[in-house]
């Protein structure tokens, strides 16, 4: 498989602040690669370095095997879609899309044909002479993408382009972008702070924190097998306890939480008793009112504090009996649990295989 983009040890320092620290990754041709991280984690700086708008302090950025050092953005085979889209308000839709081709001195008839074709493909037929201010949010989005795709870049960089849209449109554009990427086959590098965008669209996701990559993996693995506490916390919802290893038997351990509960969980590596650990548990890993004959479950009782109804994503907010840790418990919507009311006491169980445990740093 051909590697379209390769970044090796890219670092960017601003005076005494390191925005991006020794980041390395590769993106295969035709993949949808996302970089997911909280705001201020350095993901925009990383993207700007790939686009050539920021010069890296050190490290190598290669596109299709060619070192990009010293190549200005107007000579790089990548295009960037800005967070605010940056459509040119002084030009109409057609002129915006034709801008890049005109710079390449393509002849006028060809430009016209190509602009027409790409507008057709973007579901905006006949929009050439519309002004930018006449477009809706979703249409602006599509014009911005068309303006880059018409140049057939090797890699298309997207800087949170859905951030400014309202929720409904964002959900719609998510699916649309994914379909579009599959159709045109261009390599996409997408940055976002919205984990759902990253998980839904990407082939691979890199989770970034404080200028470094925590994990690069498929969305499924990120969710099910996070490698660091940051990833476990950031990707998807999680219940967290901190505690100490009480006993360790191979890859299974008994953990005593700070609140005094005892849980059995699997480990990734054997740990010494007394090691401080973080324990994470997905809301859906908790079974409500488990059958008494199911052995090997961590069982405890909780008081329901609140019912958070959100369709298929409904949850219970509950406290264990003996402490005030807040727990999120997934509530399956098969009406089986409709009897649960606020302040009810219910039994909860979870399998030791579902626990995710990391030694504290």
């Amino acid at each position, binding site marked *: 498989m051909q590697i379209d983009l390769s970044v090796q040890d890219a670092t960017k320092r601003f005076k005494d602040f390191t925005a991006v620290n020794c980041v390395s990754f590769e993106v295969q041709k035709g993949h949808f690669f996302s970089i997911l991280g909280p705001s201020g984690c350095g993901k925009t700086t990383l993207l700007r370095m790939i686009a050539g*708008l920021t010069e890296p302090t050190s490290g190598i950025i290669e596109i299709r095997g060619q070192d990009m050092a010293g190549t200005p953005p107007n000579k790089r085979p990548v295009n*960037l879609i800005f967070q605010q889209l940056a459509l*040119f308000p002084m030009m109409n839709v057609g002129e915006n899309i034709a801008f890049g081709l005109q710079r390449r001195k393509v002849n006028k008839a060809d430009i016209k044909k190509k602009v027409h074709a790409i507008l057709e493909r973007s579901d905006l037929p006949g929009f050439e002479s519309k002004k930018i201010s006449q477009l809706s949010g979703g249409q602006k989005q599509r014009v911005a993408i068309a303006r880059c795709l018409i140049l057939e870049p090797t890699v298309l960089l997207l800087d949170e382009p859905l951030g400014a849209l309202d929720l409904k449109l964002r959900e719609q554009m998510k699916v649309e972008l994914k379909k579009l990427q599959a159709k045109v086959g261009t390599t996409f590098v997408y940055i976002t702070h919205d984990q759902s965008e990253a998980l839904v669209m990407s082939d691979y996701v890199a989770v970034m924190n404080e200028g470094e990559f925590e994990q690069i993996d498929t969305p499924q693995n990120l969710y099910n097998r996070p490698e660091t506490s940051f990833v476990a916390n950031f990707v998807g919802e999680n219940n967290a306890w901190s505690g100490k290893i009480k006993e360790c038997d191979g890859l299974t351990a008994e953990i005593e939480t700070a609140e005094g509960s005892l849980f059995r969980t699997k480990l990734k590596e054997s740990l010494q008793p007394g090691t401080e650990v973080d324990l994470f548990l997905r809301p859906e890993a908790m079974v409500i009112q488990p059958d008494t004959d199911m052995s090997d479950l961590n069982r405890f009782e909780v008081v329901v504090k609140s019912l958070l109804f959100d369709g298929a994503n409904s949850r219970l907010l509950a406290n264990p009996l003996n402490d005030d840790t807040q727990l999120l418990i997934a509530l399956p919507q098969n009406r089986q649990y409709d009897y649960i009311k606020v302040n009810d006491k219910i039994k909860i169980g979870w399998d030791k295989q579902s626990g995710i445990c990391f030694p504290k740093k």
Partner: protein
Amino acid sequence: MKHQHRWTLLIFLTPVLLWLFLLIVLPQIDLFIMSFRTENDAGKMVWSITNYYNFFNEPIYWLTFVRTAVYSILVTFLTFIIALPVAFYITKVVKPKFQGFLTVLLLIPFWVSEMVRVYGWMILLRESGVINHFLIKFGILNHPVEMLYRDSTMMLGLIYTSMLFMVVPLISALESLDDNLIEAAYDLGANMWTILFKIIIPHATPGIVSGSIVVFMLTLGNYLTPNLMGGKNSLWFTEQIYNQFIASFNWNQGSAFGFLLLFLSSFVIWVGLKLSKQTLKKVIQ
């Protein structure tokens, strides 16, 4: 309530209206009438278009007129060429905390009067001036050169006087330009010149036009700088008007010239607005 509102409006508007009417409209009407009157052979004042006829009949008058117009347009254009990089540097390149400081630096020369500034240039440029002194001292020149009283010197003085009036509207126009647009154009393959002509200038057009109008009108109506720095060979049309009023004491001829100048500035601004596809309303906002 509504009645009271009307009274307040009247109180605040009266001084402005009085000022406009008594000091501008009334004298203009008087001058306009005067420009169409002339002395006949018997020494009596009669209606006539002789004053305007003289202008077209006497080459020195209309040549000065055309010269003034062409030079004013040139000064406006050169001021724009110099002011655009300055405004771009202040708004986009320099760190925000230095922006105010640099703007104040631009403003400082305007704390002294135009007269003092022009004399400053004269001290620098005259035959026994500072620049000649150093050029001779370092052996670049053998004997001093008179740098004053040339067209180029006069242009220099006019551009210097006009700079601020071009830079300030350009700064406010460029401040509203999103940096992302420049970066997006760069990313899409544009070079520096394309970005300048396709993104920056179209965005800044209202600022450019309003700055140009102010600079053009100030230059066209300037008397001091052409008079002091231009010398005898570079006659400015305002000097012709001055000569008629003060030297020849021919107020009728002077007011005819005045109205021709007013017509010229209105006409050039109208053409400028048409060419840049701007409206006066949008530009003065």
